[in-house]
Every structure is written in structure tokens, then in C-alpha cells.
């Protein structure tokens, strides 16, 4: 990966340019409401409350916010993987309410999700290699741009990990395998739920560089959920701040982080770790 990052030549990615569908937003969500059932009382409660959001082709949008504020629910609804709730969702120009199962299946490879729990989202009975083989069999053409060893290299993993099973990988290694699997498909939208939360800063820097490069060369858009504000600022154009199901503030990262208007946003900024050490420098 470092080689590619240095030269800026993204392997074979550039030889597979995208057809220009770029004016259609990749994702549009209007007034989304998603309810879950309370395990105790059985009553419905709003996990996502009237959220709207738009991601253009090649754009990078972050959702940050309190734990339990509805970020994962929003991402799952928007990609048709979870309860869809009420409101309008258009994914790659198709309204999810109107789209058929077959159409949805056709859209699937264009939208790749890196889930919050990396170990839980890998099949425990499959080695890394056989997992990749399965993806390649589903989409032979789409995935032919890179071989397994090179793909793992892009996320700074050694090729000998190909024969490991998920439980034989460290947390950060499993997370990078999930990212690699998503990239293999060369999607138009990557939804990444805390994709670097288990990575130390030096590996994280490489993964972020890779995501930037993928964006630049394939025009893939990114919906990134993260609690790491520094990561968000270094990677995303726009940030939405969620609190208790609602977006309480949204805008370009520099504006939101530079002159936050909402109290919760200010609280988030004040709570960034490292104050004790930084204050001594």
C-alpha cells in the first residue's frame, strides 16, 4: 500500500474508470424516521427522528454523535440493510420504497458496508482467503483489478494472514480485512461504521490515505460514522452531529468544528482525549 500511496498510482484501479453517472447523488435521505421496539415495555421509540442527508458522488460525509443516538440505525436504513422506517431514501437514484428485491440485489455490490463489529461480521468458519474467493466468485469482473496479496497490502496486512481464520486475527487486523473486502468491490458508496476505531494512529493514517486515494481515483463516496473527530476532520467534507435520534448540527467540517453552534457539538469538542498531555506542551 505504501508504494501506491507514494506514487499516487492506484494499481489497476485507474484502468477501470467509472461511467459518468456523477450528477446523481449517491444517497439522499429525507425526513427519515426509524422506530425500534423497547425490549422492556414493548413500546416503539424513535431511534432516528426526522433526519435528512445528502451525499454527492465522490463526497465524504461523516455522522458523529452520542452513543445510542441512532447512527448505525440511520446507516442500516439508508442502505436497505435494516428497518427502513418512514421517509424517502434514494440510493444511487433508486427509491428504496419502490425498488424490487432483484434491483436491490443488483445495487448491492455498489454499496459496501464496513460494520461496527469487525469480528462479528466475518464468517468464523472461513479463512480470509476463502472469504475473498467467495466475493470474487459473485462478481468476477468487478473484482479482477487486484489480487489477494496486493489487496491486503493496501490495508497494511501481510499476505500470510490470508490463511488465518477470524479468531486468529487481532481486532485491528479483522477491521482491516473488512475494509479490504469492501474495497475489493470498487463500490460507488462505502458506508463505514467506526472503520478505524481499533487501529493505532500509524495504521490508521495509512487506512485513511487509502480511503482518500480510492475516493480520488474511483469517485467512490463515503458515509463514515465515527467518534474520532480528528479522523473525521482529516477525511470528510461534511459532518452531521447526532444527538438522541436527531441531527442537531450539520455543515462543512471546518465550520462545525471551528465555530460550533450547538451545545452538544461543543461538548464533544471539549471531550477530545489528550488534554492532560497536550496541556503540558
Amino acid at each position, binding site marked *: 500500500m505504501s508504494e501506491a500511496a507514494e506514487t499516487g498510482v492506484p494499481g489497476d484501479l485507474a484502468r477501470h474508470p467509472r461511467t459518468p453517472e456523477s450528477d446523481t447523488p449517491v444517497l439522499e435521505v429525507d425526513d427519515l424516521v426509524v422506530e*425500534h421496539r*423497547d*425490549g*422492556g*415495555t414493548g413500546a416503539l421509540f424513535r431511534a432516528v427522528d426526522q433526519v435528512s442527508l445528502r451525499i454527492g458522488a465522490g463526497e465524504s460525509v461523516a455522522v*458523529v*454523535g*452520542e*452513543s*445510542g*443516538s441512532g*447512527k*448505525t*440505525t440511520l446507516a442500516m436504513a439508508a442502505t436497505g440493510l435494516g428497518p427502513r422506517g418512514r421517509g424517502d431514501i434514494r440510493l444511487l437514484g433508486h427509491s428504496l420504497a419502490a425498488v424490487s428485491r432483484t434491483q436491490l440485489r443488483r445495487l448491492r455490490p455498489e454499496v459496501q458496508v464496513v460494520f*461496527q*463489529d*469487525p*469480528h*462479528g461480521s466475518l464468517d468464523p468458519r472461513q479463512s480470509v482467503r476463502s472469504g475473498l474467493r467467495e466475493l470474487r466468485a459473485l462478481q468476477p469482473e468487478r473484482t479482477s483489478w487486484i489480487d489477494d496479496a496486493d489487496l491486503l497490502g493496501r490495508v497494511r496486512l501481510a499476505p*500470510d494472514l490470508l*490463511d*488465518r481464520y477470524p*479468531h*486468529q486475527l*487481532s*481486532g*485491528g*487486523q479483522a477491521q*482491516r480485512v473488512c475494509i479490504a473486502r469492501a474495497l475489493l468491490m470498487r463500490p460507488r458508496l462505502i458506508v463505514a*461504521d*467506526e472503520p478505524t*476505531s*481499533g*487501529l*493505532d*494512529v*500509524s*495504521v*490508521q*493514517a495509512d487506512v485513511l490515505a487509502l480511503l482518500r486515494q480510492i475516493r480520488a481515483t474511483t469517485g467512490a463516496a463515503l458515509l463514515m460514522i465515527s*467518534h474520532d*473527530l*480528528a*479522523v473525521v*476532520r*482529516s477525511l470528510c467534507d461534511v459532518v452531521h452531529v447526532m444527538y438522541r435520534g436527531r441531527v442537531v448540527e450539520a455543515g462543512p467540517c471546518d465550520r462545525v468544528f471551528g465555530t460550533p453552534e450547538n451545545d452538544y457539538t461543543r*461538548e*464533544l469538542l471539549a*471531550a*477530545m*482525549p*489528550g*488534554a*492532560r*498531555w*497536550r496541556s*503540558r506542551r
Partner: protein
Amino acid sequence: MSALLTLSGLSITARLADGELRLLDDVDLEIRRGQIVGVVGESGSGKTTLARAVVGLLDRNVRVDQGTIAVAGEQVVAPGVDRTGRVRGSAVGMVFQDASRSLNPLLKVRTQLAEVLRRHVRDITRAEVERRSVEVLAQMRIDDPGRVLASYPHQLSGGLRQRVAIGLAVVTRPALVIADECTTALDVTTQTKVVDLFRTLVDELGIGLLFVTHDLMLASDLCDRIAVMSGGRVVEQGDALTVLDHPQQEYTRRLLAAIPSWS
């Protein structure tokens, strides 16, 4: 004998189809009562292996081949020896890196908390179980403990699951808590509150905490001491702020340099 946890010359190896792999190499580490020791280091450096060795939950193809682990002066691990069952859950509480390992997907949170409490607190009453369950979730800054108690893990957000996993590890008040990347799913405000709670538990109850994290800044806020791992070895350890102020190892300097700048 005031050390709560002592790792001496610990080496651990994994067997793989194509040979052996050293996961830990001659690791020395000590935690005293009332102390928080941070274990930091790059992905794959052996942090989780170290944490899991203390509770005897290594993978089947992984074994201790040199060195020892003692909890409160009692040797629990040596090559071919595993007496961790005697301390796991009672003297030592563990929060795993993937919350799915700490939680049983088939049981409601209430049942899981009740099980650990009944197993480790003799003659505990029903009312006391409920009281302590609610209390520990509230300590974890969960606003609606009632709903969470009545939920299955899959009905909870990632951060709620992680906080329930911490609750399960501390509800029986073990003398030593091992927490492996236990705040990665938390937003920074919640993380601050959970980390403050750890500090309070350590200061007030005099427990010891082994805090595994890849986040150097978080470690610098919370920990008394920091051990930096690389390639299965502890390459540097000492007072937390001293390690960060005067890193002796090139590797530690690189980690510090890679922290994304904010301004």
C-alpha cells in the same frame, strides 16, 4: 507482595499450519493496587494476547511457553499450568475487545448480570441483584437502565453493548480489571465519563486496572503508567507522562508523530 498482577518473562507462541509464531516475547509487567497501567501499541503487537493470558482465555492453538503470571501473589499461569479459573470473574474481571465475546447473544442483559452476581456473591437476594444491576448500568452512564436490562445484546447500539460488557466485568467488584479496547465504540463525551468512572473505582476501591488501548492520548489522560508494545515485546514502560514526554524508543516517537493534528 503489594503487586496485584505480575507478569515475569512471559512468552507465548501460536501454532499454525506452516510453523510457529511468537505472539509475546519475554514480557515483564506489574500492576499495584490503586494503579492504572496502560498497554498501548500498534495493531497486532500482542496487547490482546497479553490481556487474555491473564484470564486464561487464549486460543486453542496458542500456549504459554515461558514465564509466569501471578495474581495477588498467587501463581496462576506457567508453562503447562493454568489456574486462572480460580480468579476469573471473582478476583479478575475482563472486558473483551469485541463485546460479542463478553456478552451472550441469547440472554437478556438482566439475566447475564444476575448470573455473574449469583455466581460470585454468596446468598445475594433477588432485590439486591436488581439493585446492583441498575446501579452498575447507571454508573456506565446509561440513561435508561430499565430498557437496557430488558434487551438482548442485538437490540443495543455498539456503545451500549460495550458499556454493558464493562458493567458485567465490574459489577462483582473484582480486585483487578482487564479492559481491552473497551471504549472504542464510545463517543468522546461518553468515553470521558466511563474513563472517569474507572479512575474513581481505582482510587476509591484500590483496585488495579490493566487498560489496553491503541489511543495514546486516552492513555495519557487515564493511566499512571504506560507500557508500549511492539512485535510482541514491551519496548518501553514507565510513568505515563514521562513516556510521552521523553519517548526513548523510535517506535513510540513514531506513534506520537502519527496522531492526526487537530488545528
